[in-house]
């Protein structure tokens, strides 16, 4: 339900003058009441006519030049993605028009820079044989000459990796949906240290919900084959309490490997920055889902994260 606070928020922003905007932006992320009611508003799968104006305003925030306004909208991104995916999986294509428009708009904004040029990100993949500020190839290689060692030298220059430009889309369809959602997840991740702990917490919960909805018994699967097993941390609680009225399970939410990997990189941050419990649970949930879907690339990441948590020699979540 749309609460008083949200209504006021909708009205207030429209009445702001240009001068007031900056100070408004600076303080907006402190409005605890507003943030709470927005989170619970999205959680209740609101009807279209209530959802649309809220989404519209959040989009205004997202594209605003005020960083804090954009960040305010970014805080809700995981929640919105969850809302969108769960509405879709229940066949409610019309009910999610507002959210879809918001997500698509945000995506299209993210594909270009401030000056409207297509955004391309790139970095170099360092090569062992080039001197760096941390090493000199001749020093390390006091080892006997082997084939693997030689192969390290075969490459003299760092490889360039580049990503983008991403296409602009006019609508979301089956073939571009997960690319769009994954890129949005990337945007959330790229600003994640500046977002609130509350948003992190909700992000972890949502990751669990996306991958477990509609399943009742995924977790069992490697309890019995992990020989060096730890008590399984996962709490598959959400799978149960989200079942429909008739006791039947809700439809499962389709996922894609790319999307799951982006979720994992956000979770990896959350895991080591205050959300050890929820983050760990979500990683486990994604691990079970990836096992079920046989996604080799996602399993590479979940295996690595789970193994490093198990292995006490590495840094631990408490280390910060």
């Amino acid at each position, binding site marked *: 339900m749309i609460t008083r606070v949200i209504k006021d928020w909708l009205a207030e922003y429209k009445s702001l003058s240009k001068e007031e905007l900056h100070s408004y932006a600076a303080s907006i992320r402190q409005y605890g009441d507003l943030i709470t009611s927005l989170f619970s508003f999205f959680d209740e799968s609101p009807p279209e006519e209530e959802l649309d104006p809220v989404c519209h305003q959040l989009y205004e925030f997202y594209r605003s030049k005020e960083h804090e306004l954009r960040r305010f909208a970014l805080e809700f991104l995981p929640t919105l993605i969850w809302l969108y995916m769960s509405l879709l999986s229940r066949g409610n294509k019309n009910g999610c028009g507002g959210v879809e428009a918001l997500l698509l708009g945000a995506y299209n904004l993210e594909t270009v820079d401030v000056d409207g040029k297509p955004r391309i990100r790139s970095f*170099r*993949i*360092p090569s*062992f044989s*080039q*001197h*760096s*500020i*941390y090493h*000199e190839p001749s*020093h390390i290689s006091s*080892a006997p000459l082997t084939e*693997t060692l030689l192969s390290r030298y075969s*490459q003299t*220059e760092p*490889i*360039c*990796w*580049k*990503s983008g430009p991403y296409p602009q889309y006019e609508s979301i*369809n*089956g*073939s571009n949906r997960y690319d769009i959602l994954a890129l949005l997840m990337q945007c959330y*991740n790229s*600003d*994640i*240290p500046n977002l609130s702990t509350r948003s992190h917490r909700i992000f972890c919960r949502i990751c669990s919900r996306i991958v477990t909805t*509609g399943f009742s018994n*995924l*977790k*069992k*699967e*490697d309890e*019995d084959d992990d*020989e060096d097993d730890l008590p399984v941390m996962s709490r598959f609680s959400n799978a149960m309490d989200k079942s429909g009225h008739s006791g039947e399970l809700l*439809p499962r939410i*389709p996922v894609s490997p*790319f999307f799951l*990997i982006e979720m994992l*990189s956000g979770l*990896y*941050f959350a895991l*080591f*920055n205050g959300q050890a419990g929820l983050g760990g649970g979500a990683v486990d949930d994604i691990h079970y889902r990836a096992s*079920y879907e*046989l996604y*080799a690339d996602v*399993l*590479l*990441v979940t*295996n690595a*994260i789970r*193994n*490093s948590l198990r*292995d006490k*020699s*590495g*840094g631990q979540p408490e*280390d*910060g």
Partner: protein
Amino acid sequence: NQMTTPRLLHIYAEAYAIKGYCIEKISPSNTSKYKAEKREEQIISCFERAGDLALLYLQEKEKTFSTLYASQSVGPIEELQENIGPILETAIQQSPIYYIKHGDLEKGIGRFRELLRAVESRFSQGLRLTLARQLAEVLLRGVCEKTYKPPSIKGDLVNPSPRKYTGDGLFVPDNETEEALLLLLIAEVIATREAVLNRSAEHKQAQNITFQNATAVYDLLAIALVKRAQFDRLSESFERAMKFSFKEFHIWYQFANSLICARKYNRALLILKECCLLRPKNVIVPLTAAKLCFEYLQKYEDGILYAEKALEAGDDHPMASRAYVALGIGYSLKAVEMKLKADRQTLHTKALNAFLKAHALDPNDYLSLFHLALQLAILRQIEDAIKYTRLALKYYSEHIHSLHLLVLLLSAQKNYEEAMQLIKAALEEYPDNLSLLLTKAKLEEIVCCPEEALNTCKKMLKIWKDFQEIDSDEKSLSLILHPMKVSEATDRSTFDKKSQANLLLTELTDRETGSMRAESIAASRMEKNLSEVASSGNGLIQSQPEAQRTWRLLNQIWLYLAELYLSLDKMEEADACVSETANLFPLSYQVAYIRGRVYEHKQKYQEAKACYENAISINPSHTSSLQHLGMVLHELDNDKLAEKMLRDAVNMEPTSHQCWFYLGLVLESLGHSEGAANCHATALELELTSPVVAFTVIPRLMQ
């Protein structure tokens, strides 16, 4: 003060370290915040001094060692080899962590960098490994694009400090990924080298420690590289890890997964086999192996065995349903390879039962429903198939293969109107899917005017061009950047597009033959070799497998277009299309076949016959060629041989109503009226349930 001798440096360093520990041990006398801060500063500065002096000491020691070594008086190496001791080691590691624990991430990172920038000596390797790993951890876990600050090379001049790496052309990272990858690269080299290979009991502990250190590095590498879709690199790294990972399931499994992602399926399967032995109870490993066998390697027998192995976990295992799906896929794929009708039928029934079981175990799973429906469709139980397809779409409304199947099923019911609507809706969701577009063109050819189909073909050619640009873009770009060699690194979305193009290709090439028969696979391999020999001048197309793939896609489109022009009676255009494909793959059986079609259309039966015979000699299981050869022989009044060809075709493709029909014609002219009547009856019956394109164009995938 000059502290030059290594011994003195060592003593001073330890003194500072111990001072730091002492201050740490004394609990603060009062709660004054100022005092507490002061105390922390003191501790940190002690540890930092200790660290700098210790590193300097190690560098000096290295110098002494080298001189000793040079003057051939290598005496007490043992003594020199020893480490700097736990006191200093902890002190060095403490200082950056101290900052981070107190919330000052930036200073912590700065301290890590200072320590790592000191020129290493042979005595500091273990320490560097830990530091590099820790800094990589910090960068991956706590820093993002927006908060990262690149290191500055301007050194501070605190005396005495250890020598640092300097010089021209140093690689200086300028974002978090570069720095993390650089650190992991160094850590990997050290870790792989330090790994203790002696597996005897006395080395057990040392071996455990180095193994854990190395594993930690490899885990971080996996996290960093998968995010950037650098699977080739990752699999190379894991390959290096194999030498110290005897019987270590985690590393083996990771290696297998990285090979799958790098599309090295054959090797991946071998590694998975080993993983199965290490963890016999694991269900995911054999299922992954089965998936590889079915989808990439065409080893159906092995796949079935792996699926059965996965089923050993029992029916109440959460993966049991998917394991039955895999088993069913195996049976169904194997059925196509069978030469005898009875064998085929047994396998089809087995497949159907497996899918039914899968559905019963997990009624909400779209995948088992889809495969059940596809199996029923192949058995021509159209009504039931439609029911299950609709159910599959209820659980996953955008599953492309279910949508495609439903279109075909509707066309089998001759409900063309609805089929057309549905395929248009499906194309709204997947506008770039060539397989769907081909089906649409076929539908258009039948339902409305063939001109529409031509339009669809145009669209396909355009989409193909985009595909091709993905490939060539990258190459031309990297050629400009590094003219000496082709180095490319793709991001995730390009990676996904390529995988998709790969899948599409298998879908499209199997259209003609209708299945992934062993013969077709052998044929396409042979063809590849033949074309390489034939068109050595045309090296660009043939040399790179990636390019091969895209050109084959184009080939498929031309072939279809040629057929379309034939049916429109436009000979010139058809000829043009044929010469296009002949340019691409001069020795392909498909080109031979389409040439035959053109000759047949021009009623030049002798030439057509020769073409079809060529096609069959390359690929004996190409049913369309067999069928048309039969027809041509019939025209040439060689009914005996025609009968033989058509019988082969019918045996190969028992649901093709055209084959049955022509067989009927041939038998009739041979005077076997009873047999002819039977054939015509079968043809009629099959025609009633026949889709516009064979159901087998829909791939049997685990997704």
